[in-house]
């Protein structure tokens, strides 16, 4: 059930972000604010972005920001920052408007979460609907409808 991994207030929409790194930081902060990770997890994800580049921009317009399991993670979780005006990450999948973030305390507890997410996003319909959704309620309908 994908909805159980998104904490309260962990889906946010806004017009713009100053940079891809700022958007990633903000998305990961939603995990912190919803009790899924400690603030140090934000630094770990930004460090991973700095070292490896925007490899977690995994589909056109979509990023899934994350770092390795660590003591900074409290529970498996997901969050989403959706930008009306997409940002440039340096990936072939630019520009990016859906900045998902995820965390897991180990390499197993998030398997169901990613399984549901992967299955949903592999349909063109869900992907296109999400890219065009501007209201949080609509985003929730798309993300949670099939996973309930």
């Amino acid at each position, binding site marked *: 059930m994908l909805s159980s991994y998104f904490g309260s207030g962990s889906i946010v929409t806004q017009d713009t972000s100053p940079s891809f790194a700022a958007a990633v930081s903000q998305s990961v902060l939603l995990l912190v604010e919803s009790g899924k990770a400690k603030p140090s997890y934000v630094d770990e994800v930004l460090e*991973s972005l700095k*070292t*490896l*580049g*925007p*490899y*977690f*921009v*995994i*589909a*056109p317009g979509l990023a*899934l920001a*994350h*770092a*390795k*399991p660590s003591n900074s993670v409290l529970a498996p979780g997901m969050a989403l920052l959706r930008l009306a005006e997409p940002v440039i990450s340096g*990936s*072939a*999948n630019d520009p990016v408007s859906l900045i998902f973030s*995820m965390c*897991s305390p180990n*390499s197993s507890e*998030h*398997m169901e979460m*990613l*399984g549901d*997410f*992967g*299955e949903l*996003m*592999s349909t063109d319909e869900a*992907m296109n609907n999400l890219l065009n959704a501007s209201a949080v309620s609509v985003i929730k309908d798309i993300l949670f409808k099939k996973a309930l």
Partner: protein
Amino acid sequence: MLIYAVCGAGIGTSVLLKSNAERALSMLGIEAEVRAVSIEEARGADKMAQVVLATPEILDQLAGIPAEVIAINNIFDLGELGEKLKATLS
């Protein structure tokens, strides 16, 4: 056949890549074991995979490993995965 799906952490991108690669392989009728691993695990593996799947940004980190490395731009696109796997495996 052994295939590695690789990402920086070995828990996110690689897991999604693994499950979609499995779907693409089953559509092609190809039997293979797909493992989600981190860059370090792929580099240090005792048993090297025949094929390695990764997003383009980390290809540099995988340079020199003795496997066919395939870059996947859109990991949700079963068409892209299927075509690239088919081209490499046939």
